[in-house]
């Protein structure tokens, strides 16, 4: 258990594929929620498709948490085969408890060398003592006991997770879990029982993204599977049907983005979701949506690149591609959720922005945010005034791409009599006729830039916390880590610090930024990629304080709060 925030307790459950550690982790999280705790879980897997080692990394806390801790209080290995690669992400120390089954291989050297307290638990033997019992349930009961979770909560979590398999299955699992629980003892875990059962959400970032899309009004999605974005599409499939919409599986990403553009041209708010390689294939379609002025949301759940990269690991390295990737001068919008739960809000906002500006909006999520599951307070629905400027009454000399003051031209939907026009990726006149004339080109370029630049993004462009002459600028999944790092630093440091988390990456908000940086004389930019992509972008487009530093390193490991706290502390003292 590490100091701030609140009382936090981190558990890693390891085991070979099929051992069920992810299920156990899920249940642990649900049981903790039932006891009024908050929490977060991510899964770490080896390269094997199945049967390799995997780990559930669970963090429980008395206050909301959106990132992993630096170290683990408990590491339980159902077995330790092929665990080496995973263990690099699981720091243990002399305060950690390591739980191992005497029937299995000895704990790996790196763990033994840490000085952690070793506890033996006969998981296999205990599981076998219940007919049909499984080791993962024994493990669940044991760590739940360490975390001070009640038996009732464990039973409830098991029920919820495997209830559909029938009473018998539930009883067997509960019996196995209780055996583990009985061997356990309360450790220095967070205070449970503070919350109220039944008023927490358990949600992954990818599902949160789907929820935001539905709330925003998306009723068509086109899908091509790709790790780590697939769950957005899989979650949406049945729910879109329920909502009276559809999800169509496409043959590739070229098709999926063009299907979404076609549906949106028809008036139906549309989305597709992908990751780096798919984004690269969607670049041409994004440009079409820019030129033909079609609202569109593309969620890009970033993974480590370049190329196929490391599909199961996060990195904030598609920033450049999302901002600058389109050929020609192609104004569009890029937003980024800054926590798992913020996916709901930011995605809903993205739909709003796309519809309102008739432009494509890229949502830059990442593998961490997308696949982490948090226990959090329910995310209230927000009603944006999501409305496309539709031409319903068609005046005499109607022009689809009319030059308007705000740059937004009323768009007739098919079915509207008299509004017939041809949407076009060729440059065109206001009347939607192909045109190579300089004045048409610059009028349309100006209009398309203006509608994005002049739109009212309100206060949503960034989350600003604190005040002071030092500022930290960050985005995406790194933001939660920075937030927690700041909580760990002494007041004399944080009292001088302002945290700016950009939600709107494009267009630039020069005035808002100037206001946010007012009085700031030093700036630190923190991001997870190899070249400092955000830092370079900020230099290009904003007036920054003279003294700007940058912290950036690539994936695959996410930042941890301690690592960032140290960097910030050193920077403040410079």
């Amino acid at each position: 258990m590490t100091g701030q925030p609140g009382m936090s307790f981190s558990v890693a459950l390891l085991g070979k594929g099929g051992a069920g550690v992810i299920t156990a982790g899920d249940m642990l999280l649900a049981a903790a929620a039932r006891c009024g705790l908050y929490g977060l879980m991510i899964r770490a897997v080896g390269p094997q498709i199945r049967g390799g080692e995997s780990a559930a990394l669970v963090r429980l806390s008395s206050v909301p948490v959106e990132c992993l801790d630096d170290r683990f209080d408990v590491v339980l290995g159902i077995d330790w085969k092929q665990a080496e690669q995973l263990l690099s992400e699981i720091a243990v120390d002399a305060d950690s408890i390591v739980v191992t089954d005497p029937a299995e291989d000895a704990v790996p050297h790196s763990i033994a060398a840490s000085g952690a307290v070793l506890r033996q638990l006969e998981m296999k033997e205990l599981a076998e003592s219940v007919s049909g019992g499984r080791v993962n349930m024994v493990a669940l009961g044991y760590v739940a006991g360490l975390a001070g979770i009640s038996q009732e909560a464990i039973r409830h979590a098991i029920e919820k997770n495997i209830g559909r398999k029938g009473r018998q299955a539930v009883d067997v699992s509960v019996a196995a879990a209780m055996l583990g629980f009985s061997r356990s003892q309360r450790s220095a875990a967070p205070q449970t029982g503070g919350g109220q059962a039944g008023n927490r959400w358990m949600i992954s970032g990818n599902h949160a993204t789907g929820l935001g899309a539905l709330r925003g009004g998306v009723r068509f999605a086109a899908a091509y599977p790709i790790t780590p974005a697939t769950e957005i599409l899989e979650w949406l499939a049945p729910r879109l049907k329920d909502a009276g919409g559809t999800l169509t599986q496409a043959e590739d990403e070229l098709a999926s983005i063009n299907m979404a553009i076609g549906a949106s041209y028809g008036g139906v708010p549309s989305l597709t979701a992908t990751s780096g390689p798919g984004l690269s294939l969607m670049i041409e379609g994004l440009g079409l949506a820019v030129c033909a002025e079609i609202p569109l949301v593309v969620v890009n759940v970033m993974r480590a690149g370049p190329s196929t990269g490391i599909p199961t690991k996060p990195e904030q390295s598609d920033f450049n591609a999302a901002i600058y990737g389109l050929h020609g001068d192609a104004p569009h919008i890029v937003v980024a959720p800054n926590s798992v739960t913020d996916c709901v809000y930011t995605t809903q906002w993205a739909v709003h922005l796309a519809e309102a500006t008739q432009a494509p909006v890229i949502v830059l999520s990442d593998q961490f945010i997308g696949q982490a599951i948090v226990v959090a307070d329910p995310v209230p629905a927000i009603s944006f005034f999501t409305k496309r400027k539709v031409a319903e009454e068609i005046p005499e000399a109607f022009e689809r791409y009319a030059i308007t003051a705000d740059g937004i031209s009323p768009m007739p939907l098919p079915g509207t009599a008299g509004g017939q026009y041809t949407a076009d990726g060729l440059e065109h006149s206001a009347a939607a006729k192909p045109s190579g004339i300089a004045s048409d080109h610059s009028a349309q370029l100006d209009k398309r830039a203006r509608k994005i630049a002049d739109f009212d993004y309100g206060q949503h462009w960034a989350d600003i916390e604190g005040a002071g002459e030092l500022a930290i600028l960050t985005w995406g999944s790194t933001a939660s880590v920075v937030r927690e790092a700041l909580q760990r630093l002494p007041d004399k440091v944080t009292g001088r610090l302002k945290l700016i988390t950009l939600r709107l990456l494009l267009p630039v908000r020069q005035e808002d930024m100037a206001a946010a940086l007012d009085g700031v004389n030093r700036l630190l930019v923190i991001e997870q990629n190899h070249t400092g992509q955000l830092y370079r972008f900020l230099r290009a487009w904003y007036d920054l304080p003279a003294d700007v530093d940058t912290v950036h390193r690539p994936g695959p490991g996410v930042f941890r709060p301690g690592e960032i706290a140290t960097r910030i502390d050193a920077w403040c003292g410079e």
Partner: protein
Amino acid sequence: MVRRMSVAAPCKLKASDYKSGTKPVWCPGCGDFHVLASLTKAIAALALVPENLAVVSGIGCSSRIPAYLNCYGFHGVHGRALPLATGLKVARPDLTVICAGGDGDGFSIGGNHLLHACRRNVDITYVVMDNEIYGMTKGQPSPTTAPDWDSELAPGGTGVSPFHPLVIALASGANFVARTFAGDVKGTTRTLAEAIGHPGFSFVQILSPCVTFRPDQREWKNKVHPPPVTFTTDPAQAARRVMTDDGFNIGVLYKGSRDIYGQAVERNAEFERDLDAEFLV
């Protein structure tokens, strides 16, 4: 959202009322003028309401056709007309959706979408103006070009066998397959009307001469002939027929009756409540 149904009653417009009045960029004598004429006649014969019709295309001379029609149009990017049309029709089943383009657009860069559109069987009509050339880019061989056709890009010919669009369409599950000749406006009009009326994915290959880069295609009018037999409902038989014919058979070759993809679904009135409940733990 906007899943309203076609409101206007079928109207009685003349074929010329379906033209937008924009002057085509096409070369004088281009076969695509005949396709434009046939299409407007077919639409007029079906008495389609202009605002409930959408014509979607890619890039190429032929793909310029939406702008010449009085209906909703989308001139997309090269090779992606079918996905555009698919998304539009699935989202707006109330519209009549026609997809149009060239052999380069549809069979070269867009070939994969043809396969999958046939399989998927969305209720759209796909019209390919096949001139066995990339016209717009000034005369490169397309997938339907003969292997010995000489050009700058492939001096002496590509040496590559041509693509059989109708066979591929049949093998992939298209629900209606026909070939027409642009110069035969009457036959093309009839076939297009039938294709549009046929449920599911209908595919019409129109032999449409490029008078500029393939002046030899002026001969096509002497080569085309009706098929020896009437259409079949057996795709294997139809495929065998066109795999062995001379390529100038015109008329309807196949009609199927497969289930259509993406019919309108009923909204679940409880769905918003369910959404909020789903994450509670």
